[in-house]
Every structure is written in C-alpha cells, then in structure tokens.
C-alpha cells in the first residue's frame, strides 16, 4: 500500500508541483488548503507524515502543530513545515512546538523528497 503524505498548503501551483514529485516517487498525496479544519483532516486521513505551510487561511501552521502535539495519538507524527518566513524566531518556535523538520521557501524538489523519505521512511518495494 502506498504511503500517505498530507500536504496542508494553500498555494495552488506549489500544491501541484509538490504533489507531482511525491506521487512520482510513489507517495499517495492528500491535499488540504484550510487551516481551520486541518486538524480534522489529519485525524481523518491518518497520514504517514504531514507537510504543513505556516501561513494558512483560518489558522496558522504553528497553531495546528501545537494542537497536533497535544494529541497523544499524533504527538509522534512526522511534520515538516514549509514557510516563507525563515527568521530564527520562527524556526525556534517551530522547534519548541516539536516540528520534525523546518524548511524555508523557496526549496528545491530534491530537498523536499529527501526529507519526506527521511522522515516517513521509503515508500516500500
């Protein structure tokens, strides 16, 4: 069974590019564009990992991460944050909240793939 990545991001063309490179690598990619309902989506889709944008409509990626880590069932779920805000204070906040990896935009496709594989493991045979 293909492993699942939940991509929580609201930029359509970034969604399309990341979905393409992950799908081609054998991942099943679920997409969610809204911050407010993102937590419900994580609980419903039970992904192997989450790629989470910081600036989302409704709720910020930091708040979503905080709530994820407060839920014992999702406290260990690998979460990679994507952000255009590369300031040290944002990185520090993400690390304090328990992010698995913090990646600043613009990123390279290879960089995304490498970290998804490292965090969620290979996609199988």
């Amino acid at each position, binding site marked *: 069974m293909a492993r699942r990545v939940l991509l929580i991001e609201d930029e359509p*063309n970034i969604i399309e*590019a990341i979905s393409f490179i992950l799908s081609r690598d054998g991942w099943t990619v679920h997409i969610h564009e809204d911050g407010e309902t993102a937590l419900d989506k994580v609980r419903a889709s039970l992904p192997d990992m989450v790629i989470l944008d910081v600036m989302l409509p409704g709720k910020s990626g930091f708040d979503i991460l905080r709530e994820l880590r407060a839920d014992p069932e999702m406290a260990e779920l690998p979460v990679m944050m994507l952000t255009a805000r590369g300031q040290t204070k944002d990185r520090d906040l993400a690390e304090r909240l328990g992010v698995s990896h913090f990646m600043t*935009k613009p990123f390279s496709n290879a960089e995304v793939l490498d970290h998804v594989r490292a965090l969620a493991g290979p996609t199988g045979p």
Partner: protein
Amino acid sequence: MDRGLRQADLAREAGISPSYLNLIEHNKRRIGGKLLNDIARALGVEAQSLADGAESALVDALGAAAARLPEAQPELARAEEVASRFPGWTGLIAAQDRRIGALEARLTALADRMAHDPALAASLHEVISSVTAIRSTAAILAGDEGLDSDWRQRFHRNLHGDSERLAESSQALVRYLEDADSDRAAPLSAQEELAAFLSAEGWHLPALEGPEPAAPETVIERAKSLRSRAGRALAARWLARYREDAAALPVAALEAALGSAPSDLAELATALGADLPRVLRRIACLPERPGTGPYGLAICDGAGAVTLLKPVADFTLPFTTGACPLWPLFEALSRPGQPIRAEAELPGVPGARFLCHAVAHVAPPARFGAPPVLEATMLVQPWSGAAMVETRPVGPGCHICPRTECAARREPSLLS
C-alpha cells in the same frame, strides 16, 4: 565683498588700511563701536547683522556638526577661525550635517516600518511564494524527459501564471520601497494613519469643542485620509476621548489657567478638577497661538508600544517598539500615578532639549482578578530656557544613537 565692493574701496570708506581690513575679515582682529558702524554703512547692512550674522551662523553650524560626532574631536576652539577663513567649506559641513539629521530621522521611520509593517511582510510573502512555485515547476519541466504532454502543458501554464504573479508582486514591492523612500510616503499602520489625519487638522478639532460638539463619526466620515478600517477604529476611539476631554476642559478655561504661568502642571490639574493625563492631552491639542507651545505628545501602552504620537521639533518616537527607553514616558510605566517632570536632551542636535511631563495611569474600568491595563502619557515641550531639573540624555532609538556607553542600550548602533 559680496556687494561688489572692492576691499580697497571698503577700507577707504571705513577709514582703515586694506591690510587692517584683511585682518578683520580673517577674524584676526575684533571690531566694534564706530569702526563696526562705518564698515556696516559702507556695506549697506545693519551693524548687528554684520556682527552676529553669517559668520556667527556658520560657527553655530560647526558647533552643531561637532556635537553630532564628538568622537571626531574637532578643534572647537578654532571654529570661528575656520568659519572666517573657509566660509564655503563651513557652509558645506553645515549642509551635510543638516542632511545627516534628516536622513537619521528617515532611517528611524523606515527601520520601524521594516520591522513591523504587515504590508511589507505580505508583499515579501507573495514574492517568495511565486518564486517557490516557479523554481519547483521549472525543475520538473527541466528534469523530466518523460513528462506526458498533459502534465507538460499544465506546468507550462502554471509557470506562465506564476511568472506574471512574480512580476506584479515585485513591481508592487518596488512601488512600496519607492514610496517608503519618499517624504510623501503614505501612512501604513493604523497609528500612522491617525497621526497623519490629526497632523493635517493641526491636532485641534473645533468640531468636537464647545457646547454642542459633533459626533466623532461625523468627523470620521468627512476624513478622506482615514482609509483603513483599523485607522477609522483608532480615530473613533481618539475622537471620543478628545470630545470628553474638551467637555471637561474647555479651551478658554485651560488657556486662562496656563496664562498665569503655572509652575506645576499637577497642581494646575488639581485646580482645574481634571486628571493629569487629560490636562496633558488637552495642552497638546490646544490651538497654536503666539507665545504658547508648540507641544508634542506621546501615549504608550503597558508594553511600551507607542499608540499615539504628535512629534514636535526633533522629538519623535517610533510606533510599536524600538524607542529609547530613557524617555520619561517609559519610566512613568514603572510608577503609575507618580507624575514625572524631566528635561530630556537628544544627542548630536544642539538645542534639542525638551521639558517632559509624564504620568501613567490604569485605564478604566478596573476589574477584580484582571491585570491592570496601563497607559502612559507624556507632554513634550521644546525647551531652551535654563535647566529646571537635571537634564537626562535620551536617544533616537538604539540603532542610530551615538551614545555607545548607554546602560540602556539594547543593540549596537549602526553609527558605531
């Protein structure tokens, strides 16, 4: 010799030798009395202006430039000689010093915007998002030979859309930066918007004075410069406060009380039956008349963020945070209810002294179990009189303050 008079002619008319006149011109002989009058008459100018005029101004300008950068250790004792022998160079130093002052003020405003401006953050986010999508999409197109034609078309379309978006967002960013670099920069925060509106009105609003003041909403409706919702909300709050202040302290009563030259504004507030913050706000918003003011005003919240600012002369503070913590405004926060009167002096600007009256109070309503909401108010008056209390050094904000040894410094200065 600007009047076309030859030195020899002037010397003859003044009854002295050309060589003696030369010594006078080069400030090697001081003159006064009849000789000063004779030379002034020959030049067609007032004797006083000759004595205190251009050269004196140039000497003052040299003193101002020297005060801005004391570590350069200029020979202050020879300022008169320099001004006399090299008036052109002295004029250039003076002009550059004024320019530096203006640039420092601009830098403070821009640094404040760069650090806290949500419009700039949104603009940069748009640029970075576009670049991210372009980079990722272009890498797919460049690296995947076997991409089927549907995907290829789709990514080409995305690339085109993102490149247009990048062009628009970068143009918007350039427009923003150009605007920010202009003296006509549009206000960006709600606080700046309100300050710009009040400044255009002269801070005194006759419509809200008198026995039948207008409703604040009426004033706001007519104010075209109050564009943003946040700006209008802040204006509504300030104008309602202004209206209450005006009803409690009419202009005539306040001007009459001030006319008796009170030595203590706290006592004046007691005599008027008003609280001190209200008196400070009202004085700052009096119509400007000869012999009074001008006054500046600053109000900050308990976190030290400036919520309202009326600049005066060289006095200004950045909105939000980053101001020099030595201003009495911030000291007042640590002692609510205790009025503070202090003289403050800015570095590098001779004469930039201010008489400050500050007080902090707990904003009503008081609630059990809730932390007090503090607000500090400071009235600022440019001050050239004799020192009444000890003058305290303050600064324009650490990043452009030359006081390198200041105990309150929170970051290194760009000037050091």
